[in-house]
Every structure is written in C-alpha cells, then in structure tokens.
C-alpha cells in the first residue's frame, strides 16, 4: 500500500499483516508515516495498492470501513468538540442498533468514571487526557473487530495508560478484537502486542514478533532508550 498527501507519497509500498485476534504495534520516528498508514487503512486518506480485510478488499471510505468492523482512534484531538460527551458516545454507536448503544454508554462511563460525571459537558471543554479517553471509548462503542489506535497513551496519566492497556488486552482476549497500535510508549506496547513493525521514512524496515523487538538491542536503543 502507498499513500500520501497531494501528489507525493508519504508511505511507500508497505506490506503488513494483522492476524485475527492479534495485537500488532507500529513503531517509528516522528514523521515516519505511522499516522498516514493508519489513516490510509481506515479510508480517511486515499491510497493505492491492496488492503484486505477478511480476505475481501477493505472499503475506501471511513464510514464503510466502520461498517465492516474497523474502528480508529485518531491521533490527537479526535473528539467532536461541540457535542457533549454522551452525544460523542452515541455517535460512536452510529453503526449499532440503538438499544445496544445505551448499555455500552453505561459500560464506558463506568470504565472511565470522569466521562460519566461529565456526560452533559461539551467534549471540547474536557482536559486533554479526558478527551483521549473519550476518543478511545467512542471508537470501542462500535464494537469493532479491528481497532486502529494512533498513540492511545498520548496525554494520559500513567495510571490511566496502564488501565487502558489492560482493558485493551482484556477486550482482545474476550472478544478476539484485533488491534493495530501506533505507540511511542514502545515498551508498553511491545509487551501488549504479539507482532511489531518499524516504519522509517515511509518504508517498512523491520517486522517480527514483539518479543524479539523487546530483546533486540538495535530497536531498544532506537525506540526504548537504553535503560
């Protein structure tokens, strides 16, 4: 797959595979094209090449990719700022029957109690971390079979990061939801993931089992820092 903005490609002919029920992580420096990759898969950006989901071609528009079972937590501000927290969650359930939505709203308000307290508050007035929680909860409202998470830990307190990652592991275990995670907190992500990929200047330069990466010195020094 290739993708980019305007005439120039930013991501060049990359190939990767996320197996059913697998958690994969994408690492890479700033501007490597991680966000671009996710946006192209979910259909926000135009792409060339082949993207398949369950062996069938992945739709090219985001509203359709959601319908086949994909959800994305965009990088940074992904919330509908002028809508309330509750409305944000309900929009997240656009593809689900209405009665199921209400139950899930309760579930996520329970998981992130702040969201429950701020139900009627405009999403835009939430703190950065609260908005990030809302974005994650909204993406999961669609009960996707594959979630793309673009730096989910961004702006979250360490304690919340742990809870979110635990929850992701939990969802993955119980529902078999696959995940493709872009994360700067590589250490944490690699522990969660089974496979890992490294992007460099828009090219896939390494792929393999997450565990190998944790032990790989080269990767360690580049992304995890010598500890």
């Amino acid at each position, binding site marked *: 797959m290739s993708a980019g903005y305007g005439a120039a490609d930013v991501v060049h002919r990359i190939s990767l595979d996320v197996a059913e029920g697998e958690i994969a992580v994408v690492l890479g420096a700033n501007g490597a094209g991680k966000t671009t990759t996710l946006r192209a898969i*979910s*259909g*926000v950006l135009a792409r060339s090449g082949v993207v398949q989901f369950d062996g069938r071609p992945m739709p090219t*528009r*985001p*509203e359709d990719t*959601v*319908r086949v079972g994909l*959800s*994305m937590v*965009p990088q940074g501000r*992904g*919330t*509908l*700022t*002028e*809508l309330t927290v509750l*409305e944000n969650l*309900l*929009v*997240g359930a*656009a*593809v689900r029957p*209405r009665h199921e939505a209400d139950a899930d709203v309760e579930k996520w308000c329970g998981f992130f109690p702040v969201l429950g307290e701020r139900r009627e508050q*405009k999403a*835009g*007035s939430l703190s950065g971390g609260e908005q990030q929680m809302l974005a994650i909860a*909204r*993406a999961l*409202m*669609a009960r996707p079979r594959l979630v793309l998470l673009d730096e989910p830990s961004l702006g979250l307190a360490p304690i919340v990061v742990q809870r979110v990652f635990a929850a992701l592991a939990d969802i993955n275990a119980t529902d078999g939801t696959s995940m493709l995670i872009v994360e700067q907190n590589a250490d944490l992500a690699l522990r969660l993931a089974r496979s890992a990929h490294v992007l460099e200047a828009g090219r896939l330069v390494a792929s393999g089992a997450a565990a190998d990466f944790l032990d790989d010195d080269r990767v360690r020094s580049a992304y995890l820092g010598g500890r």
Partner: protein
Amino acid sequence: MDVLVERLVAGSTEGAVYALIALSLVVVFRGTGTINFAQGEMALFTTFVAWSVIARDLPVWVALLVATASGFVLGALVERFLVRPVRKRNDMAVLIVLLGLFTVFNSLDGLIWGGETKVLASLLPNGPDDYVALGPARIYGDTAAVWIGTVLVLIALTVLFRCTRTGLHMRAVANDGEAAALAGVRVGRVLSLSWGLAGAIGSAAGVLVTPLAPAQLSLLTMLAIFLSAAAAALLGGLDSLVGAVVAGLSIGVLEALVIGYVPGVGSNLSETTVLVIIVLVLLVRPQGLFGTKKLERV
C-alpha cells in the same frame, strides 16, 4: 391601539417570512457548518417552477409539492457536486461557489421565465374577504399559510434534531466530518440530506411567501427577503431553530415599529436602523441570541 395591533400583526407576518427562510439556513449550518448564500435564489428558482405548474392549471398544493421536491433534489445535487468538492479546502472557496450559484440561478430564472413580474396564487384563499378577524387586524389566507408553515417546520426540525439519530449525526458532521466518518456516520448522506432538507424548506417557503412579497414573483423577490432572513439566522444564533424564529419575528416587528413610530429616520433608514440594532446585539452576544458559544480551549 388598533394601529399598534395592525402593525404588530403586519410586522410579525413579515417576520414569519424571514423566520421560514432563516430556518433553512439553520439546517444547512447545523448539518455542514456553512451558510448557503444561494438559498434565496434556489428557492426563487423552484418558486418559478411552482408558477409553471400552476400555469398548467394544476392546484397550488401540487405546485407546492413539486417545488418542495425539486428543492430537495436541487439542494442535494448542489451539495454533492458543487459544495462537497471544495468544502474541505477552505471557507472562502465555498463562499465564491455559492455566490456563483446565486448569479447562475438568478440569471437562469430570467432566461427561462423572463424578467416580468408574475403573480403566484396563494395556497390558502387570499381574496379580499378571505380573512379571519383578529381584533382590529385581519389574517388572510396567505398570511395564515406562512404562519402555519413556520410552526410546522419549526416543530418538525425540533423533533429531527432533538429526537433522532440523524439530527445528532448532522451536528457531528458539522463539527468534524472526519471524526464523524470514523465513527461510522455516513457523512455524504448526511450532507446531502441537510442540503436537501434546507432546499425543500426554502422552496416551500418560497411558494408560501411570494404572494406576500412586495415584488411578487420577479427576479428581485428573494434578495431582500434573504438578506433579512440571513440577519435573522445570525441574530438568533446560526445553530438555533428557536433563535431563527424568534429573531425573524423580532426583525419583522422591529421594522414595522421603526417605520411606524420613528419619524424621519423610520421610512428613510428603516433597514439601517434594524441592522444597527442587530450589530449592537451581536456586540453583546457575539454568538447570537440563542446560539451556543463556540468552544475555545487551549
């Protein structure tokens, strides 16, 4: 006293006219976050269509239906093929496209129907004796039609925005199309629907309002009404249905009172006076009377 009642009724009827068009502006704004500057001219076009239908000896309500339906289609087409491709690039581009459309539709009306003033029949009878007395004032059929239309549209839209998923999705799309799409909202469909709906409301309004317009059905009919309606939509707050109606009525009544009770300035500078008042209100409440303040968090 009688004169006051007459003025109030006249003013609020004029206001209902503005309100009806303003409501269609609010629908587009809530669904897509833009103002449709060509709304008035699109409505004029379909009103001419309605006139053609009546000229074929069909009843007015058929003409109303035809106009409403064609307004819906026109709105949706304009959105899909003219607005959507430039919407993401910038606001200014959308503005110019709409102003271009404004010119196209007005000229097209002239090209197809000629420039002469035409008379459009009213949906409800509006002959000299077809009125209900309201104290000293009389409510004629055409007036009643506008009033009823405004109330019905207000109720229908309120239900749409308050109680349906579609209404929620419209607001989501207006707020951030990409985020809405990622949540599975069919953005294209919602955009078309908003514009179609607005087109339909505008067109129905055109048919109801024209019998009351000073210029009847001519190329000038809608410009003045549209400007006042746009003022009403802004005064009320671009995203507020109730605001559009309240502001529309206020502007109508205000105009009537200024003309009636302010000597000198009233008849010469009535529009200016009303606009100055609106600007003053906006200075105090920049988001309009009922509009929600846009959030700015850093």
